[in-house]
């Protein structure tokens, strides 16, 4: 399954930060293993309708964090795949679930409605 990136241009979080977080998650989860090549700057910028500089900033931040390495002519590749231990992954999932439940309750949704929304949002297999 090809990993997917999403950018919400109406979100107050800058697009480069939205992208950075998603890449960090993808690398941390192992969805992007060590050696995997990231899309070329121009291609990803065109795909998302962003300026090339925006994507370049994301890649710079990832490089500064030691997650990727850019090489002239070789593109940008994942350097390390700091796979999270099982316990840490479970904790991260729990934190995300708590955040989602809080937001859903603020919207006035009950437990069933929140779970239904989650099921509908879950990507289909295959």
């Amino acid at each position, binding site marked *: *399954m*090809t*990993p*997917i*990136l*999403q*950018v*919400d*241009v*109406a*979100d107050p979080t800058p697009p480069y930060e939205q992208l950075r977080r998603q890449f960090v998650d*993808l690398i941390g989860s192992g969805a*992007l293993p060590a050696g995997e*090549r*990231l*899309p*070329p700057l*121009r*291609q*990803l910028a*065109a*795909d*998302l*309708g962003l300026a090339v500089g925006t994507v370049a900033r994301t890649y710079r931040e990832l490089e500064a964090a030691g997650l990727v390495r850019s090489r002239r002519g070789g*593109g940008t590749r994942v350097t390390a795949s700091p796979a999270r231990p099982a316990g840490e992954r479970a904790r991260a999932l729990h934190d995300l679930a708590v955040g989602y439940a809080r937001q859903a309750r603020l919207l006035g949704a009950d437990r069933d409605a929140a779970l239904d929304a989650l099921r509908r949002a879950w*990507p*289909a297999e295959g």
Partner: protein
Amino acid sequence: MAAGLLLGVLVLALGGAAVVGRPPAGDAAPEAVRRTLRRWRSAGLVLGVAAAGIAVEADDLGRGVLVAAPLFGLCVLAGVVTGEARAVRLPDPVRTAAVETRHLRHFLPGRAAAAVAAAGFALAALLALTTVAGSADDLGRAGRALSYACADFAGRNGPWPGSFYSLPLSLVVGAGAVLAALALRRVVGRPRPVDDAGDLVRDDAERRRSARAVTGAGGLLVTLPLIGVSLTTASALLANPCRPLWWTVAASLLLLLVPGWLALLAWSAVAVVTTDVRPSRATVTSAR
């Protein structure tokens, strides 16, 4: 003359159709994207036929015939560029992209593209040599004849593909090369479309289809003038009564290569004409 040219291209297209086979299959694009690409490619094709027809009638000295095929290719390429530019609109406010690296080699018909590039280099080299060697004809038109001087007499043969022909041809072919590069860049670089459910669609079949049309248009752009220039050059070289041996060798080499260029011309004509004739039977698949 114009009818003969069009008939020749048509015969080549039909003759090669059986050899070339089916246009690329694979992941198809949503119907709206396919329709947009097909319409613009067809518009380029129709415009190209009209432009070639006008060009053929425009000049009695053969320059129109020479640039007719490149003009046709140019219009087809313009159709591809426009279609690729208009096919996909990014949704707002949430935009989606796959973590993937797209390369031109994923979409380009490799051998045909290499053959078209070789034909392009051959045309450029041949035109450079014939331009340098050209001289004025009996009416003083620069670059339209090949002068020679034997022991007892001198003379000139024409028509010769000197600057009189090579300059307008280079302009059109050069513009075509730029447009082809632009088209291929769009084919690779344009965003993936999104289906009604909001999922990314892997539209590789449409990209391969466009790349095939670009290769075919590029083939027409260079091979038809290359064949014309090769035959004219060989004919003028062999008409010299006191030619050195290497002129005979060069003329023979040019004539020997013509069947290869004809085969490439046939493939190119088929690629351009049939790209949108046979729809792909592929299914739409989600990137998710």
